[in-house]
């Protein structure tokens, strides 16, 4: 892959939308239709549940009650909180390492050439395959999960940061030189802000990966956590609890994404304004 095509691909990644569905005119009819589909789906589920009386398909009301019962109690503290803090620690480690190393690698061309094959290989390796190694080397405690999450989330962050640092328009770098900025000052004041859209894209992907990895690592090697809870519920045929866990994961995922998008819009307001202009 030549550098210019990587650049184009990187640009396309940065332009991938933060919001899920494109914003179109919000008509009353449209909103009603959206809600209607959801209601219909829930009703259909309820009907099937009551008709089939299968253990596998509990009614919506049953799931709701279990959910309320489980997650608004000590279970949340015992299961959800550990998951969350493991994920955040791992993610923050990945973010700090990824952005720092990424920007440096992207800025200093030689470093980029040196590390490119290694980076390409490790980013292609599914981080979940590393979990058995992690368990072997450091057991099934918090450290293993945090490290696995950090390992998995760092690659998109690093590579996107590197791409962002590499793609700074030449004129901006030359402007910095004309005004006498040192190499480090240029890195800090020109390259990093320039690369922010790309860095943000990487961090968004990294967050998604961190979320997946916490669930997986808890399913494979853990004694608590949401991942453990859901798998355990399935194994012990606590079916409503299982569904409850999945729903909680959905809510968490949705919340994380929303928070991220919000923060991003605040920090990168200038980028969205600019892209909107040049469209």
């Amino acid at each position, binding site marked *: 892959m030549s550098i210019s095509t990587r650049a184009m691909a990187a640009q396309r990644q940065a332009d991938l939308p933060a919001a899920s569905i494109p914003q179109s005119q919000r008509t009353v009819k449209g909103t009603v239709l959206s809600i209607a589909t959801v209601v219909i789906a829930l009703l259909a589920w309820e009907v099937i549940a009551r008709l089939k009386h299968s253990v596998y398909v509990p009614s919506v009301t049953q799931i709701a009650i279990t959910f309320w019962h489980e997650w608004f109690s000590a279970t949340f503290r015992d299961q959800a909180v550990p998951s969350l803090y493991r994920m955040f620690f791992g993610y923050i480690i990945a973010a700090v390492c990824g952005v720092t190393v990424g920007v440096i690698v992207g800025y200093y061309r030689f470093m980029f050439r040196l590390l490119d094959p290694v980076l390409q290989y490790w980013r292609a390796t599914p981080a979940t395959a590393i979990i058995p190694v992690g368990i072997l080397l450091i057991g099934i405690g918090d450290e293993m999960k945090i490290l696995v999450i950090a390992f998995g989330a760092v690659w998109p962050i690093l590579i996107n940061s590197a791409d962002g640092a590499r793609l700074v*328009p*030449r*004129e*901006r770098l*030359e*402007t910095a*030189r*004309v*005004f*006498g*900025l040192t190499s480090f*000052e240029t890195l800090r*004041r*020109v390259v990093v*802000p*320039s690369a*922010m859209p790309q860095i943000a894209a990487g961090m968004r992907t990294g967050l998604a990966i961190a979320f997946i990895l916490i669930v997986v690592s808890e399913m494979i090697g853990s004694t608590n956590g949401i991942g453990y809870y859901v798998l355990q519920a399935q194994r012990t045929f606590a079916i409503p609890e299982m569904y409850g866990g999945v729903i909680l994961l959905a809510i968490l995922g949705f919340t994380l994404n929303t928070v991220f998008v919000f923060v991003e819009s605040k920090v990168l307001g*200038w*980028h969205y*304004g*600019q892209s909107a*202009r*040049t469209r």
Partner: protein
Amino acid sequence: MIVEREVILEVEALQKRYANGTLAIQEISIDIRKGEFASIVGPSGAGKTTLLKTICALLAPTSGKVSLHGTVIESPPPEMILVFQDYARSLFPWLTVIGNVIFPLKKRSDISKTEKESLCREAIKAVGLERFTNYYPWQLSGGMQQRVALARAIAFRPEILLLDEPFASVDALTRADLEDLTLQLRSDFNITMLLVTHDIDESVYLSDRVFVLSPPPSVVVAEVQVPLSQPREQVRTRSDAKFIELRNRIHGMIGKPKEQVLAEDEAHALGTAALEFNKTTS
């Protein structure tokens, strides 16, 4: 007539070869005097941008040297600032207008913060963008963005401003405005200007002196004095007979190698002398 001003920038036997071996600049020697407005005109591909970048040490010359006040330049000096043609790519989109203008001043520890701000506001006012101080570059038109780039350079109070085809990317009306703005800035802030352009009319309109470049490998084929009256004015100056004569002369030089230009110039001079002789003797 022309006051002999002090030479502040000396380009001596400058040669520039690209990495792929092409010789862009064969040999260029120019002297720039304090306070003057000099232009460099040449066909596309003559290496004009390369020349400017080499002069301000963004690129290293293959041979020859550039001296500012007698000292050879090795890295971009703060006394000489380059304004790029592509303003969109040289302004920082995450900063507002004033953010962009104050950017290069931020690292200067010898000026107080309030002084920096007043320098910036003065520069922004000088380019006519006070109302847009807190706007982002991408909210402004092309001409306004180029003004921001100019303000950023002016606020830094350089001695010499290098302008790389700065008005090539704007429409004709905006170009006229920006040309006059440049002249205004030059007299208000007493800055020496070196402008590179492919637009002959622009070069004659703005300058005290025009250097004509040959096609690559470039040399200076002629140095044309522009003794038109100051202050320049778009309609009056451009309809002046002398203006038309100068721009036609330069127009005839573009694209031709040096020997040919010199020969034609000589023939022209002889012809004019003959005409003058005929007039006096008739």
